[in-house]
């Protein structure tokens, strides 16, 4: 049987059910506002957003794999490209570019062309430490963990904080392949 060809981000995005962009932006804004009210501490909110993203990511990865037909990535470079071109496109409708590779090929930056979460948003002075889009870092971290990669995902540049772009740094800490269940008796 011929192997299934990986589908492009655009093709999948055209086929999945989509939601009104404003509803999405407003819903996310409501979540962040409620977290700020409930938790009060900006650091706590950052952590909660990351945790929520993580819980989404661990479930989202299977849908991504099922709908996009990607095969196992050869190296972390390919993984980053797939996340930027297929993953982001499929779920957010925007692509990202991959830059700033370190020498070992374990750390890179994803720069988002566009960010639907932050339409209409301005951070007030009281929330300057807030990473508004921290849910995205959790999503990437959770998704990669389910395919045996432990990563650290942080925001390097955030336009809501005055920078000129949205830059997400993804650092591969280690590959943890499934343990062989039957070790020789020691």
């Amino acid at each position, binding site marked *: 049987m011929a192997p299934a060809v990986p589908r492009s981000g655009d093709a999948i995005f055209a086929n999945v059910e989509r939601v009104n962009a404003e509803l999405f932006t407003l819903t996310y804004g409501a979540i962040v506002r409620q977290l700020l009210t409930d938790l009060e501490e900006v650091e706590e909110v950052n952590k909660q957003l990351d945790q929520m993203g993580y819980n989404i990511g*661990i*479930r989202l990865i299977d*849908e991504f*794999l*099922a709908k996009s037909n990607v095969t196992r990535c050869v190296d972390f470079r390919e993984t980053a490209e797939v996340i930027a071109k297929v993953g982001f496109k499929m779920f957010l409708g925007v692509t990202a570019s991959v830059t700033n590779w370190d020498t070992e090929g374990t750390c890179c930056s994803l720069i988002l062309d566009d960010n639907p979460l932050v339409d209409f948003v301005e951070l007030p002075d009281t929330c300057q430490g807030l990473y508004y889009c921290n849910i995205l870092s959790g999503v990437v971290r959770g998704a990669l963990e389910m*395919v045996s990669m432990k990563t650290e995902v942080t925001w390097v540049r955030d336009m809501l904080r005055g920078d000129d772009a949205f830059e997400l740094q993804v650092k591969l800490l280690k590959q943890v392949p*499934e343990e*062989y*269940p039957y070790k020789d008796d020691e």
Partner: protein
Amino acid sequence: MAAIYSLYIINKSGGLIFYKDYGLQGRMDTNDSLRLASLWHSMHAISQQLSPIPGCAGIELLEADTFDLHCFQSLTGTKFFVVSEPGTQNMENLLKHIYELYTDYVLKNPFYEMEMPIRCELFDINLAQAIQKDRVSYLGR
């Protein structure tokens, strides 16, 4: 006469999270089905070690005289396998379709706990439809 005898879904640790029987024998005892699932999980893992070529993805097809066993493992470690009549065609596509149903009706259910047994009615309904469609196309050949 069903082409598919039964469907199993195993989580990444080898625990059975879903079992559905379509054959005429009647449903297997729960303990037996759990044991069978763990056995298959172990055999699948061992086959990857036995392979002379590195990077083996495990057993995809087991052919016996009275049945075939088709197995699909996602990159996240969840295994979907179906026991069918010997020579049944198109099982890989069916398994891929079931994988998609799993991602939609199980994983997107916020009350479903990861790695736990699947008790999602929507999944059951859509799965029944998928199996029925496959059966109809099988009979049509």
